[in-house]
């Protein structure tokens, strides 16, 4: 290993560890707290998913009555999107981005702590609804008028308040990441040498800043409707109920890219390292990321084709076109593996699993972009299948890859590879068993969000298969938890650069010191560490006083 050993470790703090974690402004500790809380919400959301699948395994009411069922899928969707995937990706961005650009911390460390601490409290606010007369039950989209005061109780207000707070956290985090990426890059780290993960976080942050305020305005309007006699969405008083859908999806579709772009970034870090090749077509990849970000704001009404209230051709063509940059990425990833030397670590398996699964979710998009086909498929289980192929086969697989890939950097320990492969195999099979049958159910006419179906509808076999698959996923997650638990009790065996990686986070100790770097390699490309190991590049001069580039 050509990297110089980085000697100093931070001395023990003269205060308790609990106090240290509660008050820290270190981006790495905040990142770990983000990731940990996101995993906890993932477990809660996952248990709700298992409850939903259990109810649907047979016709009739076995387990959840319609009221609880509606709360369960509403809170499942809300939790997974706003409290699992978003904070999880924000957590990885928090931990990794400053390291990858050679910075000592985020641009605004205290705001960083604030944006994390909002998450668990907004989650508590949301979940308190279960104890206060029932949670929101109108789906994660909370369409009006079903979410208006006439039809929904206190849980809906708590949902609005919880998401509003969550949005504040997202905006603060996005501004912080943008400032960090624009202002704190190490000397030599030009924009076109940024690791792709940083690029995807950058574009995601811009999307957040444009999209979340729109959601916030919608949430406030609905809150006024519900509590102060407003009528934004009440047709009886001159409002327009479809307006909510426009506002929601103007946020909601960019949100889909907010959930998937950093996942693309993760995959684009993992594949090159374990193929021992650079990412194929770096500049095209950056361009594709930016164009997805731009096009992502022009497709929102494809969620509303059946309302009869939108101009179909425009939203159809934009939706078709957005598949082009996504396809470019897929081919770039495969070309990255092509003629490489692939090492099948667990992280790599999840990255390849991501490609195989996300492809299905992406091809589904061509069906729903076609308006006549969408008229048949909209609001059926087909859509449930499509969105889970993207968000579970896509985002969640990337999150698993990121967990195995960066765990040694965060803790100095390898997650057990054998357990990891078991985890991957069970989760891969479980994912397809759960979500593929939903395509078939949807095509044959099973609407989404129904608590029950007729015994003679012919839907039971496929539902049983999906439920069985969901139990497999649940078991795979138990394997992961056991792996994490067992690993954390073991010794630190991972060195600075255990994967023979390319980017700067591997140029420091595992875990890195509080100030991140003693010295940085010269940065001449998007792979400074690779250049150091193979290209004969030297180290840049040591940074003054070991304080990194602290602003």
């Amino acid at each position, binding site marked *: 290993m050509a990297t110089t050993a980085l000697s100093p470790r931070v001395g023990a703090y003269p205060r308790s560890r609990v106090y240290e974690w509660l008050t820290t402004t270190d981006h790495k500790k905040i990142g770990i707290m983000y990731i940990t809380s996101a995993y906890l919400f993932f477990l809660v959301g996952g248990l709700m998913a298992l409850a939903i699948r259990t109810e649907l395994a047979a016709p009739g009411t076995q387990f959840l009555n*319609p*009221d609880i069922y509606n709360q369960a899928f509403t809170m499942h969707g809300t939790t997974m999107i706003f409290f699992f995937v978003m904070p999880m990706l924000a957590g990885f961005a928090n931990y990794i981005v400053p390291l990858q650009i050679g910075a000592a911390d985020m641009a605004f460390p205290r705001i960083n702590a604030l944006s994390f601490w909002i998450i668990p409290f907004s989650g508590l606010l949301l979940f308190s609804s279960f104890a206060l*007369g*029932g949670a929101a*039950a109108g789906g994660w989209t909370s*369409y009006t*008028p*079903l979410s208006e*005061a*006439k039809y929904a*109780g206190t849980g809906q207000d708590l949902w609005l308040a919880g998401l509003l707070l969550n949005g504040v956290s997202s905006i603060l985090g996005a501004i912080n990441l943008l400032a960090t990426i624009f202002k704190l890059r190490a000397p030599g780290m030009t924009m076109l040498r940024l690791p792709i993960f940083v690029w995807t976080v950058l574009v995601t942050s811009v999307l957040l800043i444009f999209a979340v305020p729109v959601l916030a305005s919608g949430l406030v309007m609905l809150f006024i409707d519900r509590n102060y006699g407003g009528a934004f969405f009440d*047709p009886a008083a001159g409002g327009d*109920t*479809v307006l909510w859908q426009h506002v929601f999806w103007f946020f909601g579709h960019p949100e889909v890219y907010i959930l998937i772009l950093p996942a693309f970034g993760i995959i684009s870090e993992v594949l090159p390292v374990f*193929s*021992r*090749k650079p990412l*194929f*077509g770096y500049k*095209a990849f950056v361009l594709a990321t930016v164009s997805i970000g731009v096009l992502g704001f022009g497709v929102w009404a494809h969620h509303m084709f*059946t309302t*009869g209230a939108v101009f*179909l051709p425009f939203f159809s063509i934009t939706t*078709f*076109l957005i598949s*082009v940059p996504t396809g470019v990425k897929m*081919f*770039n990833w495969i*070309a990255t*593996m092509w003629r490489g*030397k*692939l*090492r*099948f*670590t667990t992280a790599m*398996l999840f990255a390849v699993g991501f490609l195989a699964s996300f492809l299905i979710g992406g*091809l589904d998009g*061509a*069906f729903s972009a*076609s308006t*006549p086909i969408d*008229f*048949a498929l909209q*609001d059926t289980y087909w859509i449930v299948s499509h969105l889970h192929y993207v968000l579970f086969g896509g985002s969640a697989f990337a999150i698993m890859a990121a967990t195995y890939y960066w765990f040694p950097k965060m803790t100095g320990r*390898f997650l057990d590879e054998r357990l990891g492969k078991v985890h991957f*195999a069970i989760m891969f099979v479980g994912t*397809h068993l759960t979500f*593929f049958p939903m395509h*078939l*159910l949807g*095509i*044959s*006419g099973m*609407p989404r969000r129904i608590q029950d179906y007729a015994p003679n*509808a012919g*839907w039971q*076999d496929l539902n049983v*298969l999906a439920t069985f698959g969901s139990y497999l996923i649940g078991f795979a997650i138990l394997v992961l938890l056991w792996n994490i638990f067992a690993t954390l009790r073991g010794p630190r065996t991972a060195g600075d650069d255990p*994967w023979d990686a390319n980017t700067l986070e591997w140029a420091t100790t595992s875990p890195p010191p509080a100030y991140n770097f003693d010295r940085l390699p010269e940065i001449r490309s998007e792979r400074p560490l690779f250049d150091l190991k*193979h290209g004969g590049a030297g180290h840049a001069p040591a940074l003054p006083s070991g304080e990194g580039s602290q602003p």
Partner: protein
Amino acid sequence: MIRAPHRARQSLKVVAAASLVALLAGACQADSAGIFPPSPVTEQGVLTQDLYRFVFAIATAIFLLVEGLIVWAVLRYRRRDDRLPVQTHGNLIAEAAWTVIPALIVIVLFVMSMQAQGKIEAKSAAPDVVVDVVGFQWQWTIGYGCPDSYDSATNVQPGQDCDFALTGAGKQGPDLHVPTGQTIRFRLHSADVIHAFYVPRFLYKKDVIPGRVNSFDVVVEQPGTYAGQCAELCGIGHAGMFLSLTAEDRGAYDAWYAAQVEGAKQTPAPTQAGAFTINLSATTAAGFDQTAVSAPADTPLAIVFQNKDQTVQHNVTVLNAGPDGGSAAGQPNAQPGQTVTYAVPPLKAGTYTYICSIHPNMTGTLTVQ
């Protein structure tokens, strides 16, 4: 520790085989579910089915190509030694190809979609039959022979102003009839929240939105009886919002129509005279103060509901008790401290559940005997 190529290959094979089996099992198992939509029964649905098959063929080709490349890369390019592979950074021609070719494919798909959409969404100047559909929590009322004002009237209650109205009373939902081979226009109205009118065999659905009248035309070609149900989440009764649609030749349809008109004339209007009074109250959102009440059968009921809860509004909704099989009463809500009387039409003997539709955890049992 990092390298386990043999084991990885093994587990990949196992995974690939298992998922293939699973997918095939899924695709072949159920009688009524497959990779293609159920065979369409309308002229418009046939167009959708053809388009679906075309998109499916292209998607399958891309799927096989890309998954094939992934599998090939995984099997062929496993690490066998420690030498550094050639560091390829990109290839302009290849990248241009996989940008331009997909763009051309999606433009073709877009053009085909728009051609089909033009025919599917086309409206006839003079449809042969107009059917008005009113969605409400959680049933449908179907109006036949309703006035032209229904074209734009958003809050309609098909009744005296139509030839007749169908309800789902005593069944899973109303039984619509339509003639085959003729243009039928469905006009969609909502009485409360958003619903969606969905008959799977049409390969079509349209949202039923308060404050709007949506409509669409179809020509049903295949005679038969087809199931339909609400496709947009509309509350706790969403899963039970069914309807049934029978397509038959014009002669049979006309006979059915005449019988319905005759039946409508004979049905007396419901009366509220001599109503039996039930007193209910609620102090908190945890539940009603009375969880079991009884009433005589075939007698109009008046539920006098006192909302003693000083914080939130409540109502009393009797499930499956409306004249049309939907829920009865329910509106208006009783504001904190307010007392509201709900009229419930005569009920047959049996056990009914009443809830507060804002807080469906508040339930009680109404025994009618």
